[in-house]
């Protein structure tokens, strides 16, 4: 069903925001037609799992993405709860993105299920922006059996607002002339970059709608939000958004994080978790051929307050041991002293790894941790993940180890006579320096 004002003037509306409808749930329904019309919820297993996606039938009962699974089950006990199948979603995503790429090379994926398209150069081939949007919706439906919603506007910000309004399975054009009529009645948190905190600040200034922000003196916004944020909000409130559709998506960091099933106080558990996360990050860096100089940690406390710390190393690294040493040091300095809900490790400032030399540390063995870890990578490639830091072998406590959507496998190796713990990469006690540099 396409809205009434779709046929309005679409001149200059060359930005499309395409958003798949209830993507994961729709992919599940597509392969299991018996679920059609029933409430379907993907994700939300485990004591702290959250809902990844919910069909519109489930949403009708208040189930939302990012809602704790337990709450979703209370709201809609009859719903079909399914574990996520990331491989299937990734495949569907690739197919859909392929359809976009047939229309224009200027596709900026925002995640697996949404993208911005700049169709300015496709107008001669495919016709007006509305025609292109209709063409995309038809192809996605015919070829993938999935529905999507499309916002058509002159800027990324307006296109995204429009697609949200068009959901589900719709299209909405917001022409340049109608942009302010459409935008100004919306609440302030419709503005890109306004979360709970900024919305609170704005409400305290008496600003409730986008129109209020647009009419507010810039000086007042600056005082409350700082120069950069104020200028950005003010521009958005007047539907000005200079961001272009960018196809370059350079990976700038690699990270992994873990939410504990039960909040953790025990330093030893934290330490082992950081080691496991550093091991995962190191493996990913080496696999991608990247190294990075900045190691960052993230710690979320019971009350959801989140602390971050980072440190830049003298030389870029892809060595889990160095990542862990730095992460553990950062953690000790941070010393949260409270129960912890989540920890994460991230390496930033990535560069192509093998070009640059690596500064060795005094006392470091010629075949140090890096070679040990590379050997472990090679062993894992042949035999599966059989090698892990020794302190992770005893079982690293109650870890629900999720890393950016895909579960990381910190495998354990216990009781194998050929590869006993003394044959795996041994983990030594934390010491900032290698052996000969141990304090006198």
């Amino acid at each position, binding site marked *: 069903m396409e809205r009434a004002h779709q046929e309005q003037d679409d001149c200059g509306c060359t930005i499309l925001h395409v958003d798949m409808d209830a993507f994961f749930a729709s992919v599940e329904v597509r392969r299991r037609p018996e679920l059609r019309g029933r409430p379907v919820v993907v994700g939300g297993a485990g004591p702290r799992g959250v809902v990844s996606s919910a069909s519109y039938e489930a949403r009708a009962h208040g189930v939302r993405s990012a809602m704790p699974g337990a709450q979703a089950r209370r709201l809609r006990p009859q719903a079909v709860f399914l574990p996520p199948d990331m491989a299937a979603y990734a495949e569907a995503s690739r197919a859909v993105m392929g359809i976009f790429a047939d229309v224009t090379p200027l596709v900026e994926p925002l995640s697996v299920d949404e993208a911005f398209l700049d169709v300015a150069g496709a107008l001669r081939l495919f016709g007006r922006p509305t025609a292109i949007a209709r063409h995309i919706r038809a192809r996605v439906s015919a070829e993938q059996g999935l529905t999507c919603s499309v916002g058509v506007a002159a800027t990324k910000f307006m296109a995204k607002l429009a697609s949200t309004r068009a959901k589900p399975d719709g299209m909405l054009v917001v022409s340049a002339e109608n942009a302010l009529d459409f935008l100004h009645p919306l609440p302030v948190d419709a503005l890109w970059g306004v979360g709970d905190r900024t919305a609170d600040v704005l409400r305290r200034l008496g600003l409730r709608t986008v129109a209020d922000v647009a009419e507010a003196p810039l000086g007042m916004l600056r005082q409350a939000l700082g120069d950069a944020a104020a200028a950005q909000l003010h521009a958005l409130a007047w539907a000005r958004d200079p961001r272009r559709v960018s196809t370059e998506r350079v990976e700038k960091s690699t990270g992994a994080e873990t939410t504990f099933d039960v909040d953790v106080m025990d330093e030893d558990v934290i330490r082992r978790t950081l080691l496991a996360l550093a091991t995962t990050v190191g493996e990913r860096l080496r696999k991608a051929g990247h190294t990075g100089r900045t190691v960052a940690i993230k710690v979320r406390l019971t009350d959801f307050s989140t602390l971050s710390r980072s440190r830049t190393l003298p030389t870029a690294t892809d060595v889990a041991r160095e990542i862990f040493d730095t992460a553990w040091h950062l953690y000790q300095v941070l010393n949260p002293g409270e129960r912890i809900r989540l920890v994460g490790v991230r390496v930033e400032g990535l560069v192509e790894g093998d070009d640059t030399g690596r500064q060795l*540390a005094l006392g470091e063995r010629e075949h140090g941790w890096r070679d040990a870890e590379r050997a472990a990578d090679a062993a894992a490639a042949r035999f599966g993940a059989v090698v892990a830091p020794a302190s992770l072998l005893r079982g690293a406590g109650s870890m629900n180890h999720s890393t950016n959507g895909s579960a990381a496998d910190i495998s354990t190796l216990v009781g194998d006579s050929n590869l006993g713990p003394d044959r795996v990469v041994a983990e030594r006690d934390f010491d900032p320096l290698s052996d000969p540099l141990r304090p006198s």
Partner: protein
Amino acid sequence: MKFRVERDALADAVAWTAKSLPTRPSVPVLAGVLMRVSDGQLTVSGFDYEVSSQVTIGVQADSDGAALVSGRLLAEITKALPAKPAEIAAVGTHLELVCGSARFTLPTMPVEDYPTLPSMPEMAGVIDASTFAHAAAQVAIAAGRDDTIPMLTGVRMELDGTTLSLLATDRYRAAVREISWRPKDDGVNLQALVPARTLAETAKTLGPLGGDVLVALSRGGVGEGMIGFTGGSRRTTSRLLDPDFPKIRSLFPDQHNARATLSVAALTEVVKRVALVADRTTPVRLSFAEGEVVIEAGGSEDARASEAMEGEFTGEPLTVAFNPGYLLDGLSVLDAPTVFISFTTAMKPAVISPAAENGEPIPGYRYLIMPMRVGN
């Protein structure tokens, strides 16, 4: 308080004291310098609870007293004054400064809020000021600059009989300097870990004054955990770091398999030139063969540079890669015309040490660099 003082003497005293003031003081009075006049002497002091500095100069005093004023402001003012005698007087809650036709009025802070400077620990011995300044610079360059591992931001001082050793490392290079000094007690055996920056700055300001530097360091009792340096009319105290320090002497190899003898000036120039295509964390590669060394930098895809220079080399031909900054740091503090670079293998630390024009080794200083590994 009222006195008359030479502009240069005042500017020097204030500049030196103000240099050690904290940029973001925990309490406002710590941003001040304390001026106190008694017995025809002006004492200017600064303190941030870690480091204290104090200098005394002769003045024509009309009346004794004390005043506490912003150190940064006073330093800027005294630096800009015309070369004429300055008259300074505390008037109520202000300090008045008149120099030639220039007149300044500065607000003062309450003197009674200013912390008492720590007293000097016990005197341990005496070093020649200029030797001390050179030695401190040679070693402090290898100390760590970030506080990931706090002990590595220090220079370890070992007072062992008539030998004073300075040691530092940042995990990637290490430096050791041994000098002779005159201990108060020939059987002295003390160690201290001094913040490297404070040591280097202090030694640098005391060096040009000539004469001797008194080192004050006590084992327990007054001034525990503190070191003091006195040279001329200036004295500095600094809090010590926790004395744990890695055993870095054992990292220096006992023997070498290969050794290059090169001109310090020529090598410095070539490395600087070639390193233009390397960034701070990419290596320069040195390939040694008999009579020649080729220095290169840059990757196969990036800009590249190479240059050959003459030099003596004994041993099997060898290629080694260094962080150019670490190499240049070592060369810059050698204070010698010739350098020995000694190797065991390309992946083991190399030792840089000074030699005279004729190739005669100059003992007392060694700088160790860990190489970089290239191409896995």
